[in-house]
């Protein structure tokens, strides 16, 4: 989550779900929390019962809206316009938290003279290069600062970059410390962040919001006022979001807008405040902390690039931030290398740094699929995913699978991805023929979470241990079993090999206890290794003890201490009613068991609580330390008036009144000079596919979005102003239901869940049903340039048409759980989606694109392929009359 990472310093939710009950106002946006996080939602209801306003802002009226005190309907994909309006409301009406903003954010910092805002660049920031389709970010820097390349531009190489952990969820990137940036504490300099912010959002008036989002001016004003009224010294408001914000071509910027609001209102680091990122079940947070991602190492350390670093020294130099806790990156990486290569990792061989694999390109999931389509990727291991249903453009996904030499699927059941070669829409349509598919498919049955020990890292960075309840059946095995024994067998095979390329595997530490008939490895042994020990074998208490000299070993520095004193802290189960609200003795949270991040900000610059009602962590002058109901997210003994000396480095360089300790300057970043691909400030752009043009600029969509213009399998619907756009007049949004889980592998195959939502359906408003002749309970076919699927029609008032710019827009709602297999089958909504991506995290835009909807069932068999070919030809012919040239292709800034 680079949005939260660049703004606050860590790419994780700033708060925990239980703390929502302390909020006076909860904004749920980009999330359907009651349906998708029903257990955590109890704390929202608790807040409501205590009198908090709960506002759900969403294109649909969902089970969350039903429980909220207010629902505001907006057009899918217009969230930045709405939230930008809130920023403007706060600034225009002087509702910002003055002392908080001045002291704890970068509002006062002066930005380089070369920076040009979108307001002056017609939708492009300075530095746009139309040839490369990306920004040169040098003009976005603070005035007087050394220039660095943005993280994420790895194809450009690493020359001159520093502190670049911002890739996926890391901190705010590398400010050079030393020369303090130019500042204006009065916030009046026209080049200071505060004034730039003010100008940037000046045009986001309530009327603009109403026109762009389709809500009423009254509802918007009521919301903005309610939020402001419930923020400040005495009160706090929280934001809750999930993939309803993430899955856009502007997803990261969208979340950033909320982060800006929370900083302006002083709602970060305080009880009942913050940004609660709701992440997936059950360990999505865990899978970024100890990543399944290609571009980071455990603990958000950068993955080395193929470009010559000059070894560990060069890597450390580029990775270490001059101030803040990233100043100790050398200790984190060396301890990681020690955990992996143990005694083989010595100071002389740079702790085996050379053994780490290097990346050379994008390498993200969608990129990989595109390489498969081009025949450049020949093998694919799919674990706990069902891309044939769950990824955008399912047809392209399945066609890609059919070009592989081999495919391994590890899952609980034979999901669509494993069965694509004999049971898929393309087999039905004749586009794929089983006998002609070269892919050799291996299906390996997996054990479920009930059949193995282990930990989950949940949405609030909480590591919770679970125990095996039953033995897995037959050949089902845990992931741990699979990887441990795979590694063991490979090591056995390579034993004695003198080939240098095998040394990383030969030297790898691979000693874990096993037990039982199946020789299941000990999950606790793995956690021990992750938590770390010193050279005497003592378990480490926390990451502050990590050393860069090879005397400590730690598999993930942010998890250091989860097994402190030899106790599995994640297995602690003391109930919350037997301890403080922060429940510090229930399981264990990273970092250092802090539940509410940046909680130094719950006190004023002098260390006193902002108010008695909202006290949380404060400075105790008698004990000379920070204290409170949570673990302080600050140096316990660093007084509020601490001023770093000019030569201070790392954590010592962060002042006593700078709460964002992972940031190089200890401040919350309203403006992000480095670390994001698509701009230092969020700007309203239309979705990649939209029936509307951008009301602000001639620049229609995010210029930096990743498109696949040369990929035949990923054609785009014409957009507003392009001939043929009238063929796709509706906004479509996809989502989940409580009854099913993501791509359905765990729920469509379970009778008790399958019967609760037994068929794919489409939700439409009565007006749209009339307009298109759709009958409640009947069938409809939903069409995009990618595919056509069918669904039962659910006509409901909950899908409200919205009026904007004098036009009524209908929205079509599609749950995305269904596929070919299981107890309940149906059309896969993702088959309709395109693969244009957010540039920062390469995520698909499935929350807002366009479609058509027609009554009746879809064409069957070969007729489906013929129908789609005809449609595509017709659209291309239409579009060919006047193809739209997007401004970003032509202009340079």
């Amino acid at each position: 989550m680079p949005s939260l990472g660049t703004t606050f310093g860590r790419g994780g939710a700033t708060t925990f779900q239980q703390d929502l009950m302390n909020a006076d106002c909860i904004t749920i946006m980009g999330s359907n929390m009651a349906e998708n996080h029903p257990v955590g939602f109890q704390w929202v209801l608790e807040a409501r019962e205590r009198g908090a306003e709960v506002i759900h802002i969403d294109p649909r009226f969902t089970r969350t809206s039903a429980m909220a005190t207010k629902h505001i309907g907006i057009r899918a994909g217009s969230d930045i316009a709405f939230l930008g309006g809130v920023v403007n409301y706060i600034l225009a009406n002087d509702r910002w938290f003055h002392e908080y903003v001045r002291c704890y954010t970068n509002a006062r910092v002066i930005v380089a003279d070369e920076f040009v805002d979108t307001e002056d660049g017609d939708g492009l920031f300075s530095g746009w290069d139309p040839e490369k389709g990306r920004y040169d970010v040098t003009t976005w820097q603070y005035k007087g600062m050394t220039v660095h390349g943005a993280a994420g531009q790895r194809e450009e190489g690493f020359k001159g970059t520093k502190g670049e952990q911002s890739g996926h969820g890391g901190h705010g990137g590398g400010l050079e410390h030393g020369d303090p940036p130019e500042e204006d504490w009065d916030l009046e300099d026209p080049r200071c962040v505060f004034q730039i912010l003010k100008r940037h959002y000046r045009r986001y008036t309530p009327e603009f919001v109403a026109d762009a989002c389709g809500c009423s001016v009254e509802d918007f004003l009521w919301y903005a006022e309610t939020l402001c009224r419930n923020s400040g010294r005495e009160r706090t408001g929280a934001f809750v979001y999930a993939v309803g914000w993430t899955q856009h071509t502007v997803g990261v910027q969208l979340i950033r807008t909320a982060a800006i609001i929370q900083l302006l209102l002083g709602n970060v680091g305080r009880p009942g405040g913050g940004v609660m990122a709701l992440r997936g079940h059950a360990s999505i947070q865990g899978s970024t902390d100890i990543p399944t991602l290609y571009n980071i190492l455990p603990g958000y350390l950068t993955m080395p690039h193929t470009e010559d670093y000059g070894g560990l020294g060069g890597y450390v130099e580029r990775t270490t931030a001059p101030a803040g806790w990233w100043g100790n990156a050398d200790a984190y990486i060396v301890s990681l290398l020690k955990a992996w290569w143990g005694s083989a990792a010595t100071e002389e061989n740079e702790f085996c740094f050379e053994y780490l694999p290097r990346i050379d390109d994008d390498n993200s999931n969608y990129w990989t699929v595109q390489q498969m389509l081009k025949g450049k990727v020949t093998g694919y291991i799919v674990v706990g995913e069902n891309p044939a249903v769950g990824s955008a453009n399912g047809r392209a996904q399945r066609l890609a699978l059919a070009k592989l030499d081999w495919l391994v699927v590890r899952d609980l059941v034979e999901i669509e991805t494993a069965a694509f070669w004999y049971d898929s829409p393309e087999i039905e349509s004749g586009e794929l023929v089983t006998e002609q598919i070269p892919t050799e498919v291996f299906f390996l049955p997996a054990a479920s979470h009930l059949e193995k020990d282990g930990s989950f890292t949940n949405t609030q960075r909480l590591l919770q241990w679970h125990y095996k309840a039953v033995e897995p059946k037959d050949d089902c095995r845990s992931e741990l079993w699979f990887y441990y024994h795979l590694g063991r067998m490979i090591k056995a095979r390579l034993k004695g090999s003198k080939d240098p390329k095998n040394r990383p595997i030969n030297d790898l530490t691979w000693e874990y206890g096993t037990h039982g008939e199946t020789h299941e490895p000990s999950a606790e042994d793995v956690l021990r290794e992750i938590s770390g020990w010193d050279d005497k074998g003592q378990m480490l208490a926390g990451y502050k003890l990590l050393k860069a000299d090879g005397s400590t070993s730690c598999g993930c520095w942010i998890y250091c201490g989860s097994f402190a004193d030899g106790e599995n802290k994640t297995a602690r189960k003391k109930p919350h009613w037997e301890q403080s609200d922060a429940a510090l003795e229930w399981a264990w949270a990273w970092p250092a068991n802090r539940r509410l991040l940046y909680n130094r900000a719950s006190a004023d610059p002098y260390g006193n609580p902002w108010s008695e009602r909202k006290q949380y962590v404060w400075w105790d002058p008698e004990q000379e330390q920070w204290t409170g109901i949570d673990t302080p997210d600050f140096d316990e003994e660093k007084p509020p008036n601490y001023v770093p000396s000019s030569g201070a480095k790392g954590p010592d360089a962060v002042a006593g009144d700078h709460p964002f300790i992972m940031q190089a300057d200890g401040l919350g970043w309203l403006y992000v000079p480095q670390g994001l691909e698509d701009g230092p400030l969020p700007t309203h752009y239309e979705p990649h596919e939209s029936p509307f043009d951008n009301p602000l600029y001639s620049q229609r969509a995010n210029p930096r979005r990743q498109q696949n213009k040369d990929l035949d399998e990923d054609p785009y619907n014409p957009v507003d102003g392009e001939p043929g756009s009238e063929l796709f007049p509706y906004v479509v949004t996809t989502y989940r239901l409580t009854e099913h889980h993501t791509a359905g592998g765990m729920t469509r195959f379970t009778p008790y869940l399958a019967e609760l939502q037994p068929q794919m359906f489409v939700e439409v408003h009565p007006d749209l049903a009339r307009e298109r002749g759709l009958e409640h309970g009947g069938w409809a076919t939903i069409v995009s340039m990618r595919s056509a699927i069918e669904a039962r029609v659910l006509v409901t008032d909950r899908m409200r048409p919205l009026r904007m710019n004098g036009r009524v827009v209908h929205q079509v709602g599609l749950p995305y759980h269904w596929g070919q297999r299981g107890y309940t089958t149906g059309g896969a909504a993702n088959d309709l989606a395109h693969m244009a991506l957010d540039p920062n995290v390469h995520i698909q835009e499935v929350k807002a694109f366009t479609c058509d909807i027609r009554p009746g069932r879809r064409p069957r068999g070969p007729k489906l392929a013929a129908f789609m070919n005809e449609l595509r030809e017709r659209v291309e012919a239409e579009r060919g009359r006047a193809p739209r040239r997007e401004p970003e292709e032509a202009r340079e800034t």
Partner: protein
Amino acid sequence: MTTPMQPTGAPAAWPDTYGEDAKPRVGFFTDTSICIGCKACEVACKEWNLIPEDGRVWTGESYDNTSALGANSWRHVAFVEQRKPLRLAEPFPEADARAGEAGSAGAQPAEVGVADLRWLMASDVCKHCTHAGCLDVCPTGALFRTEFGTVVVQEDVCNGCGYCVPTCPFGVLDKRDLARSPDDAPLALPLFGKKEDGRVWKCTLCYDRLKGGLEPACAKACPTDSIQFDELDELRKRAERRLEKLRVERWNGARLYGQDAGDGVGGFGAFFLLLDEPEVYGLPPDPVVPTAHLPKLWRTTALAAAGLLAGIAAAFVGGRE
């Protein structure tokens, strides 16, 4: 404690026959104002009680594909979409004051606007009636009142006669269908599905869990405590407090359903806080146990029999003359 009474007014067998084993009467208070419609109660119930799948029929009735309580669905979450506000607007204070001066009642609460939408969700269950018709008519003794005051069918005693089915004013009691032909798809769970059935099944209020000191599965699984399990007397007090709070907060249509010991079934062991008329949720507005009419029925029958006997006797007497 509320003592279930038989319709005749005679003290019920429960709890006296349990002697020292008798427990305080327990039940459910289902507070629909905090039900999020997750259906965890339906699934938890099925998992614990090993109930077969109830058929995969998409109904188009909002998000409700269970439709009704039955032999294979012992919890059922209703979904009702309405063009009504969830809460009523505050009356204008001035209007209130003027109304007060005029001596009339306060101003009528104004509805917030026609655009308002609410989505009611409510988890229904067997009511475990104080006067349970099903229990009255069961000829085999399969239905009985437990030491907790709940009403349970014993699966090893029930012979499937079905007498209880029409006596339930809520349509809770239901026979589990036999497989109609060998070609029928087997029910999903092997435990019961492949065995012939035809018996009556319903909520046991997790009698086995109660015996083990655990709360029923649905209440345990409910993430928002919409389903609350406790001693009935405590639940009734809690419900009154809850209703009072919702009235102060001007919730539209908040009311209790089934908490009144004077109603046609003597009060429910599992009662509800609803946000509209019971009919809106598919519940009967004024449920009456059919066996309540039995005394009158028997009296009438006795009278008729007596009259008949008298007539016959008179005929014989007259014949002698």
